[in-house]
């Protein structure tokens, strides 16, 4: 337990560094663009005085470094600044959009793990037999279907044609849990399928790789049976690899979730970042980078802890 705590604390520092670096790079990477929030906030007919006032309020006339340090000072206190496009607090914007995105991402990941890892293990158990070939082919095809095309297909079939599920939108859990669940089904399926295919391929390889290990031969030599070895020894070892793959897939899934949000017209983080990119709303863009980065970083942290718990050798190495 002590080493787990040490692991978490050690990783936390580098995780925060990653977020800071990414946000900083976003700030300076977009430094040369023309910063004109007045076109959104004040409209084209704004007087030079009001523009001047706005620039002062947002501190846009200060040197870049000062602006950056001011942002940083706010960020450590939990203040991510004010949106240039809507003059709302960035943190409020993020908090209003985050639940939808997290619902979709967590739901899809759970579904992808269930389907992908399940089928991958099943395929490995029947290695080189018909079941395996069928599942593996399914993985290859599933891996090749763009999630937004799948989303459009699902909407067309289940929402527009059969009217079984809502085509678009997100219902907050607090409003109606059942509608919340119904609004999540199609986006989650569209997002989960490609990830499940990738997870499945890698899970299958992970189990197959374990099946060639020396300890399996030793287990066989003790007289233990195939199923006992599989469930009692192999799967737990393969799980370590699977956890790493799941964490890696989170990165891909977040990219895909932005698209799926758009396909299903869900007001999530993806839409926020997309409109911030189009309107050059730098504070919101930076917050988007941090939020998405944080999801990745937290996923990795959980994965590290899980791996260290599953395989004590990895825990000792870190």
């Amino acid at each position: 337990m002590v080493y787990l705590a040490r692991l978490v604390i050690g990783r936390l520092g580098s995780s925060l560094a990653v977020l800071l670096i990414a946000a900083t790079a976003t700030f300076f990477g977009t430094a040369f663009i023309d910063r004109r929030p007045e076109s959104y906030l004040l409209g084209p007919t704004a007087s030079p005085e009001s523009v001047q006032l706005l620039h002062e309020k947002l501190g846009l006339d200060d040197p870049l470094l000062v602006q950056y340090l001011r942002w940083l000072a706010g960020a450590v206190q939990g203040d991510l600044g004010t949106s240039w496009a809507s003059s709302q607090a960035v943190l409020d914007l993020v908090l209003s959009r985050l639940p939808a995105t997290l619902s979709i991402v967590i739901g899809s990941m759970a579904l992808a793990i269930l389907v992908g890892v399940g089928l991958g293990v099943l395929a490995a158990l029947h290695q080189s037999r018909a079941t395996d070939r069928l599942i593996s082919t399914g993985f290859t095809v599933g891996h090749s279907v763009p999630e937004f095309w799948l989303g459009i297909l699902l909407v067309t079939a289940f929402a527009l044609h059969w009217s079984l599920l809502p085509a678009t939108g997100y219902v907050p859990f607090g409003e109606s849990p059942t509608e919340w669940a119904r609004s999540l089904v199609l986006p989650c399926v569209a997002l989960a399928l490609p990830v499940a295919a990738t997870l499945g391929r890698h899970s299958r390889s992970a189990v197959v790789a374990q099946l060639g290990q020396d300890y399996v031969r030793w287990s066989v030599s003790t007289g233990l049976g195939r199923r006992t070895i599989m469930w009692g020894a192999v799967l737990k070892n393969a799980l370590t690899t699977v956890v790493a793959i799941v964490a890696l897939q989170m990165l891909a899934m977040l990219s895909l979730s932005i698209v799926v949000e758009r396909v299903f017209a869900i007001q999530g983080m993806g839409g926020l970042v997309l409109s911030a990119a189009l309107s050059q709303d730098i504070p919101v863009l930076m917050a988007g980078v941090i939020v998405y980065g944080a999801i990745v970083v937290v996923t990795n942290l959980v994965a590290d802890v899980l791996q260290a718990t599953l395989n004590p050798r990895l825990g000792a190495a870190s």
Partner: protein
Amino acid sequence: MKGQAGRPAASPRGRRRRTRRQIRIGAALLVLIYVVGLVATFTISSESATEQSLTERLAPPGRDHLLGTDQYGRDLLARTLLAISVDFHAVLLAVAVAVVIGVPLGVLIGMGGPWFDRVTMRVVDAFLSIPTLVVVMVAVASLGQGLVNTALGVGFSFSLIYARIARTETLNIKNEPFVMSARQSGVGRARLVGRHIMPTLARPLIVETAVILRAGFMLQATLSYFGLSVQPPHPSLGNLLRDAQEAAVEAPWQVLPAGLVLVAIILLLNLTSDGISDLLAVSGTPRRLLDGARGRLSRLPEVSSGSRSLVIESVTIQVDEGAVVRDVSIHLERGEVVALVGESGSGKTMTAMSAAGLLPPGAEIVAGQVQVNGHDLVGASPGLMRSLRSADVGVIFQNPISAMNPTWRVEKHLTFPSVVLRGLTREQARQRAVDLLGEVGIADPEGCLRKYPHELSGGIAQRVMIAAALAGEPSVIIADEPTSALDSTVQVRVLDLLLGLRATRHFSLLLITHSMGVVAHAADRVYVMYSGEIVESGAVSEVLGHPEHPYTQALLAAVPQNRMRERELKGLSGSVPRPTRELPGCRFAERCPHVAAACTAGRVPFVERHGHASRCLRAQLESDVFAVEGRRGDLP
């Protein structure tokens, strides 16, 4: 599909050929799609694909419009065909940008000092932990929209992946001896990069490019779908899909053409890149060790076993390429320590493992008999094999730590089989584990039970594995090089432990080794194996004192104490012929200092006199000479 999906009987070569064909077909079809797209741009006027015609809105597929028209009355077929080359060009541009930025950046980081490396890699890694699409959004914010701008953004985001690979490879190559010496002899950095680093980089970069192309098409379609890349009304696959989604209520078929083209491109890229990584993957055939553990435990039938606990009789073992063990006969009397000695590749492990039913997948006993305590193993049911392994045969492997399950504590190695197979309660099994650990000389059994394999030294781990082998009270123990992976001081102690246990528990021990020192120290009798055959056998004192076969003599000469004889056997060069090779006569002939014409004329018989046997014409002639005095014959 990573190293998989082959039919069970497929040879590695056959699989490689299939993989190559998969790559060729995949790449050829991709080029074909691109060429169709290119031809379309030269034959179809872009007006016909962009001009709106409200009278022909959403026409279903038909004579005038093979795929129908969209909600603006534009021909869907023309738009789909024109979209193909647009997407290809956008992706190729992005990948080109990625390579041009990423590869030099990576090489630069790799060539720079450690500090530069650490700082820049931190930044690269930070970017790589942000979802690609978010990075591209940031790029769009600063560069603006449009095909070229988004391609630049995508290219930048991919360039970090290239940089990472190029940097790793550069670091690796930089420390290769040939590059080090080139540097020392004053070869300039630029030449070093051009001559040594770039060519080596090509391979991993090609593999990665196949993966990146796939991601590129996905991203390009996504960005057009968002309206960030190709601007309407110009067609691209993403634009087509967005239009199709808008018209989905009235004309659901519209989502198909562009989507299927996209799926086809990505599927082909996947097949190609899977093929490439399969081809470069080190491991070929997946091992299926578990297949040997099928069947249910069964009660062993009563048989009379006699004085021999293990009999291997005229066994031939075959793999795909041919026979690896040829007509081998070995037996173990009860309580006897028998050594099976030979170089690696001589077939000694294969022979011994046949007695535990642990032949690797693909190897098969095609002739002869194996009996353990009177039970026939050849053709036995898997259940009988399992029962024998759980109660009659124990196996000790060469590398104890890798033979242990990394996620199991020592305790579970000792108790799990007892609980599952022998019906002990956990407490009983635990008590037994403590006793066994004491018996193998572990000072603190309770403490040891709580340890994981990686926390053990090699010597302790091997003692644990010996204890595990004893758990089933076997009458035969097969030890495959049990001390080779250990420190030399520990080797003797572990060997002595096995001998002591043999004295108290009366099992017979089949000791596989390549060391004549181990044979001399531990064994009662010895079998010498060479290239799949037994070439000499007998009591250890006999064989070591009066070796008959030149190979045995050479092995003995390799033992340090026998340095004096090394000069005589200098002729022993070359290597063991692969056991699968068919040779007409003596398999040692091509390395033998005494070889004569008769040696390669026909199979050399294995001739025994007073318990000492060998497979050498010269030795047989010599002893004939002693038997029939005065007739010397023409000795080879």
